């Protein structure tokens, strides 16, 4: 067991006595048990670092060939050695940003609703519905986005681009807002629609992290706020939200990490292009993961190496985002390490 330190006992005439050293010597069974569990923990670390390592080894050839132009070229033609992820990476980040912008208010409201407003009786059901939302296969979300949402979202796209088209990212090339017979296809297959679908996939992740941190707001402070005359919203604003700030930031970033890597829905909905397209409402875009999934089957040799390099970039990006997020969440949850 852990080393126990006895508090320095005060003897009656004021002299302090040195603590008796207590040391634990694990029995053989315990030594094996701790060794096994440590091996398990190490194995997990090894597997996850191997991901980065192998992607780097396989992608080295392409990176050595393209050098820094890998990050600035807006094309993907590895056979003529003219390739880079500038356009694709921008597309990935744009999709993720759109998704998080839409999902953040909904996830925040949903998690506050579950942890503060919903009656305790239905809370468990709501939580498992959120879990279900996370477990709905992404191909199902993709199908829904392609066959159902796209048709309904086009009018929203048209409305935004008509009234806010003067903001560069909402501008749509070839849109004819004054022509009632104009085809809506300039708005389809866009970053915005993919972002809408992906936002549904990240809501549950963000929500569960936020809800967990909200539920750890101490009861004493809650009751204190009520005792001072706060309404429920006053209590939420002065107690729950400050205590949950780490969870909100961390959960949002974990959602961002998840949104950066979505594959299937992107392939199904977006029409792939490899240059930078900042007009999120207009047709065309691409993400790194969709690029890998689309081209892996027909590539060989150098093409695969280029894809591995793209994968490595995605890995590094999501790792940075996710590690920052989980560090923030872990710091906000520091109380959970102590036992009751």
């Amino acid at each position, binding site marked *: 067991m852990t080393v126990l330190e006895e508090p320095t006992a005060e003897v009656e005439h004021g002299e302090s006595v040195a603590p008796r050293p207590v040391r634990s010597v694990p029995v053989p069974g315990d030594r094996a048990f701790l060794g096994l569990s440590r091996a398990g923990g190490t194995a997990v670390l090894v597997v996850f670092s*191997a991901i980065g390592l192998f992607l780097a080894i396989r992608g080295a050839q392409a990176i050595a060939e393209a050098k820094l132009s890998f990050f600035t070229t807006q094309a993907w033609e590895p056979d003529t050695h003219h390739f880079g992820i500038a356009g694709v990476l921008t597309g990935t980040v744009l999709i993720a940003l759109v998704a998080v912008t839409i999902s953040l208010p909904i996830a925040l409201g949903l998690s*506050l609703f579950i942890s503060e407003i919903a009656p305790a009786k239905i809370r468990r059901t709501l939580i498992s519905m959120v879990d279900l939302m996370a477990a709905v296969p992404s191909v199902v979300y993709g199908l829904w986005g392609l066959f159902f949402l796209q048709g309904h979202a086009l009018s929203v796209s048209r409305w935004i681009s008509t009234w806010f088209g003067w903001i560069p990212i909402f501008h749509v090339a070839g849109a004819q807002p004054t022509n009632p017979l104009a085809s809506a296809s300039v708005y389809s297959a866009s970053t915005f629609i993919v972002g809408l679908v992906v936002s549904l996939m990240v809501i549950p992740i963000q929500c569960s992290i936020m809800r967990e941190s909200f539920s750890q707001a101490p009861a004493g402070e809650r009751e204190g706020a009520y005792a001072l005359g706060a309404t429920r919203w006053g209590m939420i604003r002065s107690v729950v939200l400050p205590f949950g700030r780490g969870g909100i930031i961390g959960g949002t970033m974990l959602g961002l990490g998840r949104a950066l890597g979505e594959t299937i829905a992107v392939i199904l909905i977006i029409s792939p292009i490899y240059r930078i397209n900042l007009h999120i409402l207009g047709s065309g875009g691409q993400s790194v993961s969709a690029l890998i999934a689309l081209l892996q089957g027909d590539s060989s040799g150098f093409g695969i190496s280029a894809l591995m390099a793209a994968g490595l970039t995605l*890995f590094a990006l999501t790792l940075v985002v996710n590690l920052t997020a989980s560090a923030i969440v872990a710091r906000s949850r520091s109380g959970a390490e102590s036992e009751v």
Partner: protein
Amino acid sequence: MTLLQFPGTTRQVNAQPPVPSPPPQPRRRRRLPRRDAMFDLTGAVIAGVSVALLLFGRLAPFSAPFGFVVVAYAVFLLAYALLVSLHDDATAVKDAVITVVLSSAALVAFSALLLVVGFTLWRGWHALVHLNFYTHDMSQAGPLSPLSAGGVAHALVGTLWTIGIALVLTVPLGLVAAIYLDQTRSRPSRVVRSVVEAMTALPTILAGLFVYATWILTFGFEKSGLAAALALSVMMLPYIIRTSDLVLRLIPGNLREASAALGAPRWRTMWHVVLPTARSGLATAVILGTARGIGEASPVLLTAGFTTYMNADPLRGPMVSLPLEAFKLVQSPEPNMVARGFACAAFLLLVVLTLFVIARIVGGHGPGHLTRRSASRIARASKRDIERFARAGADRPSIVTEDTA
């Protein structure tokens, strides 16, 4: 809270003259009666919808359904604030309006979920009702074949193989890693926890790309069900570790301390106290991990290849799983293929829903809660113990001290 009474203090308290108790006050009403709140809400809803109907139907040339909802919602909020302000002050109005806003965020999320599930089941129904959908593969069915020919039996078999192998790999490793996180509170274990948490949001395609880079390109194996299972394992492992870690953290510390105080070594505490207490939670963790893994198409896309033929050997030849089959089918321009794709997705969704119902039944109660069966099992065991003690007591009337270990 328990009040400890010491002999000295009791006497002091008793010595004081009794305070005359204040006259009983009526209990304060903290919020409005339910009925009034309901009236406020209903009235505001009616106001919102009517104003939007008036605007969109009569007064202005608006048409978009989305705009209708936005206008109706805005008017609803205004009307609700107005109604509440008739009988409450500004603070209470703010509270009421924000409560409604938060609830509507939840409403949006859950109705999106219902729409997704409902739409998929509705579109998939036409092909799901054909029995051959579950028993045939797609090798004999062309793009124009009717729904009464061809099916996804090969994808079913592939899903069973890949998820089965993945579970065999991830459950032991995931549990051991979760136990590691539970047992050690050191710097390395915090690193592992952060990495695991970060990996739960790892792009699933990278799990596939990793297995492709190692298993297929470096070790030279062919694309197969096993490779897909490896990719799924890499993807599922962090989920299982994270959820099991959360479950183990919920075990009350005094159970472990009681076990340690009885002299049990750590592995016995884990095996006989912590794991049995957490059993339902751990089962839920595994089931939820399965639900995640079973629906993931992108790792399988890179590692399993694609086939329309039945292949029951996970070691050789391409294999296909249900989500991948759905993904490939809906990319066809033929309506029948799209219908099959939807049916595939709907079937997958039903599997996930079933897994969730099972998880709910298994994990429907907190740690330490006993089902009737486990309670009677414990009762039987302690009855046996009493008999054993009685026998031991008859043989040896002195108190047993040495062989309690």
